């Protein structure tokens, strides 16, 4: 009965919240020796998941389910900027965090709009 936007937006918002968590962790550990920066991998997995799809050459073929991948938190073991082996660039983390926060707000607003459409229909135009 409902469109898929609810599911899609929920996943996108969850990923943005996970990113926020990772940015916070990196910023909190910006001065911790041997701490390596964490990051979230999602878009790559999504691209990969949407690339592999069963061919539907007949109208009665069942299309492959559009299951969304699970976001993963990875540790960047390569990059470190300081002699104490800490890999956090605070400026990068802060800017990415702010951008991610704005993206989250956009998603929240889209979710509100999606609900509004249903409200419009329910109330009768």
């Amino acid at each position, binding site marked *: 009965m409902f469109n898929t936007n609810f599911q899609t937006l929920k996943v996108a*918002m969850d990923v*943005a*919240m*996970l990113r*926020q*968590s990772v*940015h*916070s*962790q990196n*910023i*909190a*550990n*910006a*001065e*911790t*020796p*041997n*701490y390596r920066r*964490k990051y979230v991998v999602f878009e790559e997995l999504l691209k990969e998941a949407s690339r592999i799809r069963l061919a539907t050459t007949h109208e009665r073929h069942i299309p492959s389910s559009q299951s969304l991948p699970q976001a993963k*938190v990875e540790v960047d073991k390569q990059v470190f900027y300081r002699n104490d082996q800490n890999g956090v660039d*605070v400026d990068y*983390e*802060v800017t990415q*965090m*702010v951008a*991610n*926060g704005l993206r*989250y*707000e956009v998603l*929240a*607003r889209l*979710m*509100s709009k999606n*609900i*509004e459409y249903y409200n419009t229909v329910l109330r009768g135009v």
Partner: protein
Amino acid sequence: MSEFTIFNVSASGMTAQRLRLDVIASNIANSETTRTERGGPYRRRVPIFAEHLLDKSRTSAVKVVRIEEDPSPFRLVYDPSHPDADENGYVSYPNVNVLREMVDLINAQRSYEANVSAFNVTKSMINSALQIGRG
């Protein structure tokens, strides 16, 4: 992961940076202290930061595990009239370099602010999630 764990992470960062500020303040305050409880001049203190795992080891907060003493040698100043001068007339002053402490102070302040902004961004994200469906 709960959204509210993120607050704990930022809070741990703020606590650690504030403790660092305290340590720097005590280093600067004691930069000329030649007598301590344990005898001898004051030794510069350094907070040791370590990753602190929350949430079944998936979330890294930070904590200060120890406050250690800087083992570098004391600053020797020739001043035979000083009551704490040794037999050669040298006074051992703390191994605190005030300039270095000031740089550290600014660093700690900036790190604290970064944690505050992380906290604020998390807060506004949760707020905007709460506004969903309110029109």
